[in-house]
């Protein structure tokens, strides 16, 4: 039985595409309001999990439970979830405002307030000044914010992110990380975030799920993964890689300090 504050429970998930088994025996849960990162190298099955969760892919076996209800066979739009893709997937022919407003206008209950909600969402991601522009006139970071606003507009209680910052430069990623956390706090949304970047996962997540080759190696808080890596793979892929980054950065920190001193 899942805990009272458990939002999603995934049981014995299995995905076979053609003759290849992509995922097998996948079990995990996500707490309400949690920020869970799924961390692993390319091709390890992270995106497949996301597509099953949102309903874009039928699992070969297993169940997806949300708020105690089996949603394994529910349509993507009936799951109360939203998704943000790496490539933004914005409607290029529409303005920023129309991108956010479009789905709302098709919803009878929200049609009347669609403009108001869309503007509010654009304000939340700091893009109200760009409402009338076409997406192609925005930077990558701004386009990703539009995609987030569009998802938030339908008020989902879970948002899935499929490597949303992979195509962005370092500066924009740092800013967007903070904004995403702030949005999560403001809207209380559960977020499941896919990344292959260890640093990103550790900077943002309440818990991290480390995966490789269709198998979950460990799900735990960032601190516990560092302290007690479940196996050699986690130690190598997560702890060792992070250590390398820290080492290289610490070398330069002394250079920076020396540089500052000489400047003075």
């Amino acid at each position: 039985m899942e805990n009272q504050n458990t939002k999603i429970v995934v049981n014995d998930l299995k995905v076979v595409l053609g003759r290849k088994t992509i995922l097998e025996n996948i079990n995990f849960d996500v707490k309400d309001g949690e920020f869970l990162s799924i961390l692993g190298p390319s091709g390890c099955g992270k995106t497949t999990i996301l597509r099953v969760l949102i309903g874009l892919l039928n699992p070969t076996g297993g169940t997806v439970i949300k708020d105690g209800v089996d949603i394994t066979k529910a349509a993507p739009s009936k799951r109360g979830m939203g998704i943000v893709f790496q490539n933004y997937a914005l409607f290029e022919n529409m303005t920023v405002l129309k991108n956010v407003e479009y789905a709302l206008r098709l919803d009878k209950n929200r049609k009347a307030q669609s403009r108001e909600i869309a503007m509010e969402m654009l304000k939340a991601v700091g893009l109200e000044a760009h409402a009338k522009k076409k997406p192609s006139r925005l930077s990558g970071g701004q386009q990703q914010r539009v995609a987030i606003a569009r998802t938030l507009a339908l008020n989902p209680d879970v948002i899935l992110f499929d490597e949303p910052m992979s195509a962005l430069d370092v500066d924009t990623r740092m800013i967007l990380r903070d904004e995403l956390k702030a949005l999560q706090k403001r809207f209380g949304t559960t977020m499941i975030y896919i990344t292959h970047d260890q640093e990103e996962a550790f900077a943002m997540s309440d818990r991290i799920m480390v995966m490789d080759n269709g198998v979950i190696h460990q799900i735990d808080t960032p601190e516990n993964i560092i302290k007690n890596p479940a196996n050699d793979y986690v130690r190598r892929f997560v702890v060792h890689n992070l250590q390398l980054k820290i080492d290289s950065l610490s070398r330069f920190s002394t250079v920076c300090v020396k540089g500052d001193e000489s400047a003075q």
Partner: protein
Amino acid sequence: MIRDKSNYLKILLSVFFIVCVILPLIQVLANIDAASWQELLQQPKFSESIRNSLTASTLSTLVSVSLALLLSFCLARSNIRLKNMFKIVLTLPMLIPSISHGWGLKMLLGNNGILTKWLGLTEGIYGLTGIVMGSVMYSFPIAFLMLSDVLSYEDASPYEAASVLGINKFRQFTGITLPYLSKSLISVVFSVFTMVVTDYGVPTAIGGTYTTLPVSLLKEFELNSQSGKLSIYGAILLLPAVAAFVIDLLKKEQSRSGFVNKAIKPRKGVVRDLLCYAVCIVMCVVVLFPIVAFAMLSVMQNYPYDLSFTTDHIIKTIDQGGDVFLINSLIVSALVSVIGTAIAYLCAYCTARTTGLFSRALHLMSITSMAIPGLVLGLSYTIFFSGSALYGTLAILVFVNTIHFFASPYLMIYNSFNIINKSLEDVGATLNISRPRILRDVLIPQTRGTLVEMLSYFFVNSMMTISAVSFLANIDTRQIALMINTFEANSLMGCAAFVSLIILVVNLIVKTTFYILKKALKKNKPVKTAA
């Protein structure tokens, strides 16, 4: 979960292809019998027409591709001005039927040709020389467009690297340019060869006694429209097209997606540019000659005996039903344009925007028409639909033209769909926006330019085709392009010239209209900026 309603559409489109492509083709092949084979093999004319076809097509392909390569190099690798104008003039022959090219040459270089007289030549160019010249005029624009396209996407980086390493120009050409062009050249050679070997317009007009396979097929059809021998001719004509299709398919399988890092900017070169100007101007004059000849001959009393101005040919053309046939052609072309574009669009939507085995099968069916020459397609329709309610109607002409010209517009929109973000439908599914809505509100607005190109392509080609419709049209459904055949048979040069001119003018108007429309649509297109 996702219930793919596009499957119903795929089934419907598959049925369309099975009825309009596969079954007629099977019927042609099933019509082949041993007795007809035996009979044909015993006729010396049969092997002679195969030999003639191979000789004429090989020579035409060599000349056409060489000229196309030269001209596309002149435009892509020089700093000459008026490149767009040269391109428009050089592709003008694409707007008239192949038989008109033959007629144009006849008017210029036939026994009583304008140039024959001027140059004081003793005889005309009937036979192999005429067929090669006419076929080059007819196929050159296609080869030129294909090669210009390939050259415009070439990356400058390998040349810069070669220059830094001190590799001379000749070695750069053999080591970089030729390998880059090799795969495309194979495609161009096969496309041109297939075009020429299956064409009967040029050989009919200027071939004289030099009979090629398509002309033999046509003669056989006039003798007996249900003969098994027709199917044998059809099957033989299918071979080069099928070979071209398979090679193209294999080439695409092997090709890796490349991108242009840096466009090639030709260095300063006055001598080179002057030479390029000369080549382009000479070729433009050669291309424009037959067209000017049409215009002149349509208003000359009786060339070469009476060169006074007359409207007789125009009146005669109208008297013989030219106005009705023109309306027929306009109706059929407009319908082919709209119906063909709609079917090709939906087909490409299914194959490019959905995945699975069914999509791949539909894609293969959609491009199959590339492997069927118009003459064979027309023949297969004659055999398959003969006796049905469709036979003898404008509708069958619409279908045959739609299939005949299907592959190119289909591939245009297929490629456009593939460039558009693949996750749009996924996003739509999560936002409760249905696939038809995404198609209507997002995909169609983003592909308007391609849609206009598709409409134009279907219209222009349908307006001038002869091969696909020659077996199927009757007196009520006759197309204006077919009048050239009739006038040719009655040696009415002025009328044939006038009909060719009408087709050219209509196609020019349509092309210009669609060009303006596309420009207007482009104005509203968002400008891409860096991320």
